[in-house]
Each structure stands twice: as C-alpha cells, then as structure tokens.
C-alpha cells in the first residue's frame, strides 16, 4: 500500500471497505484517504473496482462491510447530506433526452436547492448558453459531457467525482475537460477521477492510484514520478504491457 505522507485534511476516507457481488469481490478491504483540494487520479483495468468504488462513494451502492466517510460523515447513515456535498459525473450524462439543456439543469438545480440563476451561470461557464433551449438528444457528445459536468456542479459541491471523464470524447473535448478539472482544483475543490486514459489522467492528476482486483496496488505523487516511470509501473502491475 502507498504512503500517506501527503498530510492535510481528508475529504474521503474508506476503512476496511469491502464490496462483494455474490461470490465476486469487487473491492477488497480498502483503506484509502483522499486529501482535500487535490486531484486524485484512479487508474486500473476493467473490473479493477474503480466504478464500484465510485458508486459506493456517491451512495449509489452500499458496502458489504467496512465504512466510508465523506467530510467526516459516515455515508451509510448520512446519504442525503453526502449527496448534497458531492458532485458526481458518471459515464452516463444523467440528462433527460426529452428535456432541453436548461430544463434539465433547472430540475437538478431545484432538487439541489440552488437558486435558478445558477443555471444560466453554468451555461455561460460551459459556453452552452446558445444551445440552452435545445433538447439533449440533439446536442453533440462533447456538449452533453460538458452539460453533465455542469449538472454535477449545480450545487457548487466541495468534492467532485468523475467516472471515465475522457471516454467517448474527441481530443478537443478531452483538452477542455482537463482544463476544467484543473480550474476546479484551483478553485479549492477536491477531485477524484477514475479513468483508464493513462496519459490524460497522469497529466491532470496530482496523486496517482492504481487499482487492480479490488485493491490499490500503486500510490504515488506525480511530483515524484515521471510519466514514463508511471506508465511502465502501470503496465507491469496490470500486465497490460506483456
């Protein structure tokens, strides 16, 4: 396991977290601390448990055993409060195809108890104001991705969790998403992103984690790890290079 010498306030903590689906163990006895105001990039091959971890952290799934704390709150009995503090961008945009961009954001905005003005604010921020009355179904996938990030930021959460933010995006959109994640961090947000895009994840991340078969098998700070070093370590750990 990695060294936790990165001290500082902890945003997310798991203690002995295990998740089993019947006989399959998705997460094994995971002890992890995610620091505040930092970008933590979580890598790993398919089936490593990244998505399961993210679903547990965002209260979509419940642990088989062990505990999870978000901002010091145990998620098992503070689900509502935790959901109010985190913004989650999943692979699916979670936007209704039949509603317009503005209508979607307005629905989420009200549900999160934010003022309606937040909708226009975010549409401006993401450069989508001119498409606000278009149905989600007719927008490009890059635009939908940006909107789904806007949706997650509707309540200005302290913690943002991304699952595969770079998949199914063209290189231009990837660059935009990366710079956005950087901005979030500069704004003092805690970011956790799970991805199998090694290069982009490395570029944007500050702490690098690799999961394999439900365990964290690699934990390093980017400042101390070169890109090539990281990539070869990843290949070696996951067997992708052989």
């Amino acid at each position, binding site marked *: 396991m990695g060294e936790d010498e990165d001290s500082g306030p902890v945003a997310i903590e798991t203690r002995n977290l295990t998740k*089993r*689906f*019947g*006989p*399959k*163990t998705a997460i094994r006895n995971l002890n992890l601390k995610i620091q505040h105001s930092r970008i933590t990039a979580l890598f790993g091959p398919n089936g490593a448990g990244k998505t399961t971890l993210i679903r547990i952290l965002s209260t979509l799934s419940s642990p*088989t055993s062990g505990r999870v704390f978000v901002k010091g709150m145990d998620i098992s009995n503070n689900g509502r409060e935790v959901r109010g503090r985190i913004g989650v961008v999943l692979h699916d945009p979670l936007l209704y195809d039949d509603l317009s961009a503005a209508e979607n954001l307005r629905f989420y905005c009200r549900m999160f108890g934010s003022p309606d003005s937040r909708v226009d604010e975010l549409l401006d921020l993401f450069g989508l104001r001119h498409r606000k009355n278009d149905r989600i179904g007719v927008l490009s996938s890059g635009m939908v991705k940006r909107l789904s990030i806007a949706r997650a930021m509707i309540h200005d959460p302290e913690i943002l969790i991304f699952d595969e933010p770079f998949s199914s995006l063209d290189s231009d959109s990837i660059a935009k998403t990366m710079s956005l994640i950087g901005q979030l961090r500069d704004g003092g947000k805690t970011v956790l992103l799970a991805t199998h895009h090694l290069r982009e994840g490395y570029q944007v991340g500050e702490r690098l984690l690799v999961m394999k*078969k439900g365990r964290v098998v690699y934990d390093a700070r980017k400042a101390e790890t070169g890109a090539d070093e990281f990539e070869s370590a990843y290949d070696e750990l996951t067997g992708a290079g052989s």
Partner: protein
Amino acid sequence: MEKRKLIDFVLALLAVIFVIVTVLAALYYAPLEPLDVSTVLYHQDDYTGDDIRVKGVVQDLSGTEFALEDITSAVFIDVSYADSGDLDAGIVNGTTVYVLGRLEPDVGIAAREVEIADDPDEPAGWRSPYSAKIFYFHVPAAWTSFLAFGVVLVCSAAYLWKGGQKWDTWALSSAEVGLVFCSVAVISGALWAKAEWGYYWDWNDTKLFSTFVLWLIFIAYVAIRAGAVRHESIPRVAAIFGILGFAAVPISFLSSRIWTSLHPNVVATSQGHLSAEAGAVLMLGVVAFTLVYATLFSRRTAIERSVIEIEGIKEQLEDAE
C-alpha cells in the same frame, strides 16, 4: 463435509420410511369415513323444501341405495349438477342425507321433507371414498408449504437485517421447495374438492383463494430469481418480495373476511374433529412431508452452495490469469 453428507443420507432415509408408512397407513389403517370430521358446509337460505323436487338415487359408501322419497330430512352440503339432476355421491346417515351437487332453482335434489342445515358445525362424514385418502396428503403438503414459506420469511428478514449469503441461499431454497409442496397442496385440494363437493374449485372459499394467491406470489418470487445472476440487487429485492408475499397472506385473510361478511349466504368453516386413528395418520403424514421438505431443502442448498463455490473458483482463476 462428511458430516453434512451423513445428515443428508439419514434425512433422506427417514423421509422415505415415513412416506412409505404414511401411504400404507392411509390405505389400510385409516378409517375410510372419519365420521367425526365436519367439513365445509354450505347452506343456502334461498331454498325451502317446497321448491325442491325429488330426483335420483342416493347411495351410501357401502353401495346401499336409498330412495330419496323415503328420506325425511336432508342436509345440503353443496350444490352442483344442476343439469343432470343425478347425484354424484352421497351418504345417508340416519335420517340425514348428505348430498353433493349444485342446487339450481329448477332442477335439483331433494327429499320429501328437506331440512336445510343451519348449523355449519354439524358433523358430516366423507362423501367420497377417495377424499379421505387425498386428505392425508393434502393437509401435510399444505402444512409443509406454510412451513417453507415461513422459513423464506425468516431468512429474508435475516438477510435484510444482517446480510450474509447463507440467508439468501436458504430463502431461495426454501421458496423453491415450498412451491413444490404448495403445488401439491393446491392440486390435491382441487382433487379433494372434486371428490367431495363435485367440482374442483370454490372461489368463495377464503382458504382456497388465499392459498392460491400465496402460490402465485411464490411463483412470482421464483420467477424474479430465475435466470437472474446471483448477486447485485437480486437477493435484496427477492428478500423484500418474500416478506411482502408472506405479509400478503394475513392481509388477504383479513380483508377477505370483511369481504365475505358482506355475502352472508356463503359460510365456510373447516374445523375438524378427527378420530384418533385418522389424527394419527395425519400426524404421520405431517412428519413424513416435513422430512421430505428437510431433505429437499438440504439438497437444494447444497446445489446453491456448489454454484457459489464454482463461481468463486471461476473468479480465482480469472484472478490468477
């Protein structure tokens, strides 16, 4: 492992022995007509003696025929066979004739002076030589299915409360085995009713109806689980459905009682005063069926454990790659 096999073997052996003994006892020992038994009695106030015409012949179980004209009083057990006017079966007990068949205004069965039973608790005998035999299997099957569904309830609650694979395995196994017994109970009950009442099913009978609904609920339970993967949310949803399903039974009973009370011409009771011999055979049957249940349950859980074990091994193999 060996101990488990031994227990399975002993259970299976005992189950076979008890079933054989029950069959023999039901065939040769149990009285053909446990006259103490009072079964479902219907009485219809709508009909008086004057409206009813005499038709057909009543036969008792020994084959002796009685001309209906000679009978001074009759108890109408149930009413059917409006068209033929023939009696399916009936026995004469003193001056009381027990008749099977559905009474319709025009065609029917009657005696010179027909007395319609007001007291549904009045003891009656078996009206068919087959029904008693069926009875010794029907009651144990029904009892075992209730036991099995009770186990589903308990295990489902335990699964939701504490989690743990074994509770889910037990609930699933018990539901499947229970469904088999419930099917036996429903089918044998229908056969019994055919022999006894002259038709297969009476939707006005709360007990029949609610057992049938229970049967449907657990068919749905098994359908929810059938073909589904053994992880993710299935066990939890199934556990909730198991609890809802079992809860539906008392609710059904309660509400249908209110409902039945609105239809006062339908009265159903089924309390029994069994003779000692019949009671003994019935107990034997209950023990035998419970043992069969235990055996099947044990085997079914073993299968489920193997499936889980295999899936675990598969996962290990994948891990090792």
